[in-house]
């Protein structure tokens, strides 16, 4: 079933929408949750919560790309769950590593102003669109999907050291870009 048809089922409040969504997107959403949480039970709960959020969000939303619409919900829920888990001192997952890597991207604070998240998002989109297709895919795989360097290397038919080098350079470029855009965090 195509995305449009599934979204139409959501709009009709037809529960087949959930079955079809589960059939088509559970592996994808589990991958998103797994990379952040690394815990089967948490992943399953996170994916199930995604379906509930989607049910509540559509309507009024009418997503064009259902996969990324759901993926964004899963990612957000997984990060929230990770934060709660950290508070319970359970930790784990790849998030601490990603946060440490993201420190390379933080701009030197030239302004006291804190940038609105929408402005920051637009800046990130502009930065990503300025990258080569390959470097963009690698960067998004790492920091959106939270894929391991090894998995990215396998996906891109490349070596792990080359992927690490591309990520390092792209993080530095992002830092300079955010500074040039006068972004404050």
């Amino acid at each position: 079933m195509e995305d449009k048809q599934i979204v139409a089922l959501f709009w009709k409040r037809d529960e087949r929408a959930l079955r079809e969504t589960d059939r088509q997107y559970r592996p994808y959403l589990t991958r998103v949750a797994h990379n952040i949480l690394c815990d089967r039970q948490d992943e399953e709960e996170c994916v199930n919560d995604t379906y509930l959020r989607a049910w509540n969000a559509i309507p009024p939303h009418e997503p064009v790309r259902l996969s990324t619409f759901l993926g964004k919900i899963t990612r957000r829920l997984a990060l929230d769950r990770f934060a709660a888990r950290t508070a319970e001192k359970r930790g784990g997952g790849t998030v601490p590593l990603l946060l440490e890597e993201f420190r390379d991207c933080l701009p030197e604070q030239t302004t006291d102003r804190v940038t609105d998240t929408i402005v920051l998002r637009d800046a990130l989109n502009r930065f990503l669109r300025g990258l080569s297709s390959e470097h963009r895919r690698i960067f998004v795989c790492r920091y959106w999907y939270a894929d391991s360097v090894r998995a990215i290397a396998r996906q891109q038919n490349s070596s792990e050291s080359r992927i690490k080098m591309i990520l390092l350079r792209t993080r530095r470029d992002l830092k300079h870009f955010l500074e040039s855009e006068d972004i404050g965090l």
Partner: protein
Amino acid sequence: MKEQKLLQVFGDIDDDLIEEATHRARPILLYRIGACAAALLLVAAIALLSFGKFTPLMSDPAVTTTVPVHHTATQQATTTKKLPEIAVIPHWEDKTLAERFPEATYGGNTYIVTNHTMDPQFVGQKIGSVTVHGEDVYTDTAHTTTAVLYAVKNIAQHCAVAVQYKDSNAYYSAIQSWYTPKTLGQFVEDLNLEHYLEVGAVYAENSHTPQDHLLSKQDVLRLLREDLSLPNVHDDRYWYKPVFSISVGIPVLGIENVSMAVTADGYLTTNLLRTGKAFFIGTERVEALLQELNITTTTRTTATDNSTTTSKPAVPPVISPPYIPE
């Protein structure tokens, strides 16, 4: 923390950027290895010709052909030589639809389309439509078209599908080449091996002669069914050295002569559907199999015999790695 905010906001980047990241790089086997092989063949052919080894062949106009030889696609260098036809990267117009548009992504799965066209009787229900992309490496031109994906009857959708391109009646088989079953049971069920598996000759270690009919399909299925709960413990870093291997295939998908092997240290391995899979059946079971088939081996080891295992981990990776859905 600032980096947390950055990580959160990164989640809201545009959808097309997120989707683009799921596209894989061009498969090495199809292009790089193909280009290397073509270059090696060219060098070998020129060397042989320079020694006059092919004079009778070249003097026969019936078997002589003039082909433009492309050293690499990016160099765009063409040399017209009289040569026996050798492997070259085909031009766009010479490619099949599967070669032009080799990947189809749907529902989080990426399928590699093969040149095998399927008998329509095996084609199941329509799954959905996708836009597929191709690249003419000679002119650096991007192409797109649409294709409809169909299930293959009684084979799980996350393993393989049939692809029908726009304006074509053919159904090409497409393999989800990152398919990783969690258990032996899932592997057998997903691919419906009971129905679709084909078994060929057995190749024993230290023997270059394949032995036909040493194992029947029912023998192999019996081995697979012994413990369907066995987890897939394949680890890319581990060297699975076979003591004998069986040529297996799934003809409906165009898969032929792929190895299913048994290792001295107790694994049943296969690379059906391209990724490696390994199930620990135990050294005792392997010993029994070797006796049943009357196969002798020089590198046979047991769990207690470490004399020949110095290059391998002391403990085999029998613990399942974390589940990574792909």
